[in-house]
């Protein structure tokens, strides 16, 4: 039973990790906790589902189009709700509240357009499972885990090695200076939001497929957990998001399996608080000197 629970926990953890990667990337660039991430994640899953069921597109095509649409939604959110605040040099907390507003707006919009009931998400990649004794690991669980790692690696390469990555890092360090050096800051920020929202859509679709269901409220708890995972691992540090996601997922499942299902969230968040007291920057976070 313990190993089966561990596998359950690792899978749940990798869905958190997948979502947390997008969170932590936007934070790394903009130092903005983007609370609309959970709603965008849900929106991505719904768009792909609707492309598949209403327009009868095949999964891969629907997936690609859905991810792009969600990415564009990310840019729109930035242009309408965050850009004006940046322009007026509003305090960071104003942007944060704005993202909460966006997430409520998206949730209600989806409920209005597609209804509030839980919908079936077809299991497109039904690849079966491997059995080792009484243990059962499905290939989908492995795929989710792999995709989280691959996305993390790809993002690290984009940020470390490409020109746009350099521009992103420059913008993160000092927006004004980057602008003076000829970096198109607005494009960089749009690109960041596009990337973040597309990652959320990928996560939403995979999680929707794993649980074979999506509903308009699915982003709320997932967003919160992913945020916790990002903070636990060290927000802004990509490998930290994966580590944090796995720790939260496994501790949650073990708490539900061995203590009581009522304590699952309490214990997961309890670990988060304990780690932050000992290491305020998160497990893999580095102390960064504050800009003056």
């Amino acid at each position, binding site marked *: *039973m313990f190993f*089966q*629970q561990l596998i*359950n*926990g690792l*899978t*749940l953890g990798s869905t958190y990790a997948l979502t947390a990667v997008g969170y932590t990337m936007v934070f790394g660039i903009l130092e903005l906790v983007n609370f609309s991430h959970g709603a965008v994640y849900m929106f991505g899953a719904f768009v792909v589902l609707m492309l598949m069921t209403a327009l009868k597109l095949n999964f891969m095509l629907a997936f690609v189009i859905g991810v792009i649409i969600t990415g564009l939604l990310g840019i729109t959110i930035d242009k309408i709700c965050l850009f004006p605040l940046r322009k007026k040099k509003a305090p960071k907390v104003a942007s944060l509240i704005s993202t909460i507003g966006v997430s409520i707006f998206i949730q209600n919009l989806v409920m209005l357009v597609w209804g509030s*009931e*839980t*919908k*079936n998400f077809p299991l497109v990649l039904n690849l079966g*499972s491997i*059995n080792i004794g009484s243990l*059962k690991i*499905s290939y989908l669980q492995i795929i989710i885990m792999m995709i989280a790692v691959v996305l993390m690696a790809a993002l690290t390469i984009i940020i470390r090695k490409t020109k746009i990555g350099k521009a992103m890092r420059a913008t993160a360090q000092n927006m004004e200076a980057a602008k003076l050096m000829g970096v198109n800051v607005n494009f960089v920020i749009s690109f960041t939001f596009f990337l973040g929202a597309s990652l959320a859509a990928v996560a939403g679709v995979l999680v929707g497929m794993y*649980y*074979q*269901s999506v*509903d308009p*409220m*699915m982003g709320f*708890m997932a967003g919160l957990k992913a945020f916790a995972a990002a903070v636990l691992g060290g927000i802004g540090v990509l490998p930290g998001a994966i580590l944090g996601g796995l720790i939260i997922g496994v501790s*949650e*499942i*073990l708490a*539900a*399996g061995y203590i009581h*299902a*009522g304590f*699952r*969230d309490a214990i997961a968040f309890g670990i988060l608080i304990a780690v932050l007291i000992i290491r305020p920057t998160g497990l893999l976070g580095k102390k960064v000197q504050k800009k003056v």
Partner: protein
Amino acid sequence: MKRYFSLIAILITFALIFTGCTDTGNDTQDTAKDGEITIAVACPLTGDYAQYGEAFKRATALKVKEVNENGGIDGKKIKIELMDDKNDPKEATNVAQRLVSNKNVVGVVGHFSSTACLAAAPVYQKAGLVEFSPTSSHPDFTKQGTYMFRNINTQEIEGPIVADMVVNRMKGKKIAVIYINNDWGITAKDNFIKAAEKLGAEIVAEEMFIGSQTKDFTPTLTKINEQKPDVIFLAAFYSETGMIAQQMKQLGYDYPIAGLSSLFNEELLKLAGDAVEGINLPTNFFPGDPNPVVTDFLSAYEKEYGAEPDQFAAVAYDTMGMMIEAIKKAGPDRAAIREELAKIKDYNGVTGIITFNENRDVVKTMKILEIKDGKFQLVD
């Protein structure tokens, strides 16, 4: 500006009070001379719950039409006084005030939700007018007074029926229970466990989950798998039941599932497909029932409205039928109607064979459904 607002508010209040007065006045006048019998139907006709009110409106009108075509009550025609409570407790109280002050109203079919029923109950009780709710399942509703009746099985009644289904039909000796952690789920689970233990079954696991937050049931299911139960009983709604069934299938566990009447919803089949095959559940109303009472109701309803009735229409139809039954015996006297309604035994309705217990809670037979070949099907 503020002063104007309060002035307008006062004017509107007065206007509403006066229109209210004239309305009730009119009612008293035009029904008194007709020698008709007036039964009120109070339900939400506007607002979020209007669809349920619409089912009430149609089904009660159909019953009244049928009775009137067969000579009414002692030659007197029945008239429905339809009231909109918007499913709002405040509005329900207003509706109740108006109905009790209308001397022609001999009984009330309504309200829809427990909230509205509970808010209106003191008014009906004080005036001595029967409030017969087709749908209020809150345990406290009939405890509000002697004039409150309900036409839906409470968990106290449904629990033993489901326990019998699990222990005797599904041969469940070792039962695992998963329940939603809210008032409804806890009451349902407690009543089920009490009845199942009385029937000699053993409860091997009792696991809860948090509604609409818990999406991952794998730890709970893996834990239950250790106990190797005969049956898993779920006190849950269809969305979670679908997820539990799918995750069980993914984990490769194959245990029979039993649920409550809350699962009788086509959405469950759409949501979980073949993962929910074999689930057993009880229900009061099933459109596929070959019972002539049910088939007659179905064809009459479809002829009248061109649509299939749902369970809310069915239960409202029975509620009106029982109310008329009581009036036939008691005559148009509010207190006598209460006495006769309480005495009704084995009323053969579309939602089962209906009797009241001493608390005026209904005790109805239930049919057992099983999901087979992607459909709800009646088992013997």
